């Protein structure tokens, strides 16, 4: 019985199979973000009501940055929750900011009206802000702490518990170990 030969063969094959089995544990479409724990890229956003907002002006507050589009079902699913959260958090030095990407202005405004969204929203016409944040799916949400560092990124729709928990973490500048996932839609 050529034991050594057999053992080597079996070992090599099991290594390969193990590697392939590892593949089942991840979603190949998912792109890990290198931005967590890093300073949030600065931008200037023109809101729908005409005002300009600069991210650096919001230093000292926790920022909840949400990328959305009107044609995206998971965005619609979370919209009411976001608005409700905004209502409860708005006096706590927390700013909710929505960035509309890959959309037409009338549709975006209609979306805002439909869900009665009151926190500031603006449109990223050129997609520059989206690329700056490495956006690849919507909705994507970034939690930025008072120093301007990204503490958490969530791809997909968010629920109340996650929002509350991550906002509190951001207030204490705790960087999350991993990204979050929900049901998302790839961007166009």
């Amino acid at each position, binding site marked *: 019985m*050529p034991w050594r030969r057999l053992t080597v063969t079996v070992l090599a*094959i099991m290594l390969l199979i193990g*590697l*392939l089995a590892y*593949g089942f544990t991840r979603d190949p479409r998912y792109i890990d973000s290198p931005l967590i724990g890093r300073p949030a890229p600065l931008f200037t956003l023109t809101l729908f009501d005409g005002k300009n907002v600069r991210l650096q002006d919001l230093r000292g507050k926790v920022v909840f940055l949400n990328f959305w589009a009107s044609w995206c079902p998971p965005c619609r699913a979370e919209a009411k929750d976001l608005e409700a959260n905004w209502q409860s958090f708005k006096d706590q030095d927390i700013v909710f900011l929505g960035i509309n990407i890959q959309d037409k202005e009338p549709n975006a405004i209609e979306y805002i009206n439909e869900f009665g969204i009151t926190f500031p929203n603006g449109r990223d016409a050129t997609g520059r802000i989206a690329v700056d944040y490495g956006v690849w799916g919507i909705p994507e949400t970034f939690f930025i702490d008072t120093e301007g560092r990204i503490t958490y990124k969530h791809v997909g729709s968010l629920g109340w518990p996650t929002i509350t928990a991550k906002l509190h973490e951001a207030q204490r500048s705790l960087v999350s170990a991993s990204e979050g996932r929900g049901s998302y839609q790839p961007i166009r």
Partner: protein
Amino acid sequence: MTAIIGQASLLLAFTLALWGIIAPFLYSRTRNQLLFTSIRIGILGQFIFVTLAAASLIYALVTTDFSIKYVALNTTRGTPIYYRVTGLWGALEGSLLLWEWILIIFSALVAWIYKDRHRELMPWVLMIFSIVSAFFLAVIAFASNPFESVFPIPADGGGLNPLLEDANMLTHPPLLYTGFVGLTVPYAFAMAALIHGKLDAAWIITIRRWTIIAWFFLSMGNLVGAWWSYHVLGWGGYWAWDPVENAAFMPWLPATAFLHSIQVQERRPMLKVWNLSLIIIAFSLTIFGTFLTRSGILSSIHAFSSGPVGSLFLAFLAFILLGSFGLLAYRADQLKGQPVLDSPVSRESAFLLNNVVLMSALFTIFLGTIFPLLSEAVVGVQVSVGAPYFNSVTVPLFLLLVFLMGVGPMIAWRKASWDNLRRNFLWPCVASLMVALVLFIWRVQSFLPLLGFTLSAFVAFTILFDTTILVRARRRIAGEGYLRALLTLVRKNQRRYGGLVVHLGVVLIIMGIGTSMSYSVEREATLQRGQDLSVGRYRVRFDGLKGSQQPTHFRVEGAFRVFNNGHDLGTLTPALKFFPNQKSPIGRAVHRSTFSEDLYLILSGFSEIEQNQVTLKILVRPLVSWIWVGGFVMALGTLVAILPFRRFSSHES
């Protein structure tokens, strides 16, 4: 009713497959002739039942029996008949059934052709077929069943994926699957020989014939896939190094290596373990390929929606690899020959080098395909391995292969004389360098394409010179005319000349690929009506947009008038198709092919605010037609190699 017939047939075939696994063991103990016959009947029975199941699914598709979920998801009342039939392989469950059907056709064919021969091996061969068949039937019957019912019965179905609505859907999957499944036959024989323990070289000839058939279908399947990608997908390319495309190409490499190294084994008792390994690798790669497509571990445009099937295939792959290589390792000692070579300068060495290059190519492509997994598993970094990587690393390998294609046929078996060799290479070398000079002066000024062309010319010239010398020799000896001498030469050395024609085809393909990759010109612009865009000597004028409602989609066509140095070449109409349940439109590019170059028009988009404003992308790609012509030449060469001309020769003498 149809679903019941289908389900029942699958289950019956599965039980017969189980019997086909057990019976050979019983036969080897008892030597009962009845058992032997029962094995063959088992295969025949599986063939009948699987055909029945496939036929019932096709029937259900054609009659739009929406009580079956598969039919409801993959066809609509409005789908034309031929697309309903292709619905058989349009989605996961059906494609597994197609694979099983082709497998059982091959098994039945083998059982019938060899019914009185290879008596010792046949039970084991059929057992291997039954093992693979049992696996596929188990997956189809229990894990992803195409005959699942749906309630309530919808009034109309979901329809074929719009990207699949194309004539190539009729040819590409069946050809490719035949290639994959065809590799099961040599594998079965190889395993049977290993199990049985009778390891002298005779059965290796049988394997060679089946391997060449599978290799042929694999080549054609891949080429038709490239054609489809070029013709329909509308990005102007034909090969994206997508993981599933790689998985379809990878079995071709060890099959090609086998077709060469087997010639060494036919002449000398050597390379036995290596040849068996090649067959095992080729077959395992087909299972690996189908695993990749259905498991979802690598993102690919070809992937079927993943289900539980992935882990089942991984388990089967593990079983195949462990069983085959384990058995090979166990029997390796019995297989070792006494390899003796007469000279390092011999065709044997050339073929060994050929194997090294082909297997290095396989290693490279395999590594590149699974590297994202490896990187994430080992260091946690997400990387992508795409076309730029594969293009840069495989080019030197394929150029080396072209060089070997020129050198190999010129070297004699066993021992070649150096002086003769040098003399034989002289003229082809000179001729190809002259070609290189001409090309350099004319247009081709970068290194790699120039090298590619030179080597390709070298191959063509060596074949030409070699054939000329032999035809002349024949005329001298037998006094025949040129044409007759050539025909006799080909007839007497069928395999050799078939192989040389295939080499020519491969060279054409490599030239086509190399040139179109290095010398494509691309221009994109936004045009108003009446404006034009020039690329090279083509001028393309935008004449207007037209929208029309088609039965399955809404089509926006742009009319573009093409001028070549003033000559009016007519109108081309690339389009964008808007399907109701797709968020982005599907492009339909149009191209105009000539032997020297293709003009490829892509309608990237149109403005919704301005009337008649479009974004047009023009690609001018040289020598793309040579790829398809090369494919035909390969097919021709294969036919020359395998068609039975020899029958006539025995009548003459």
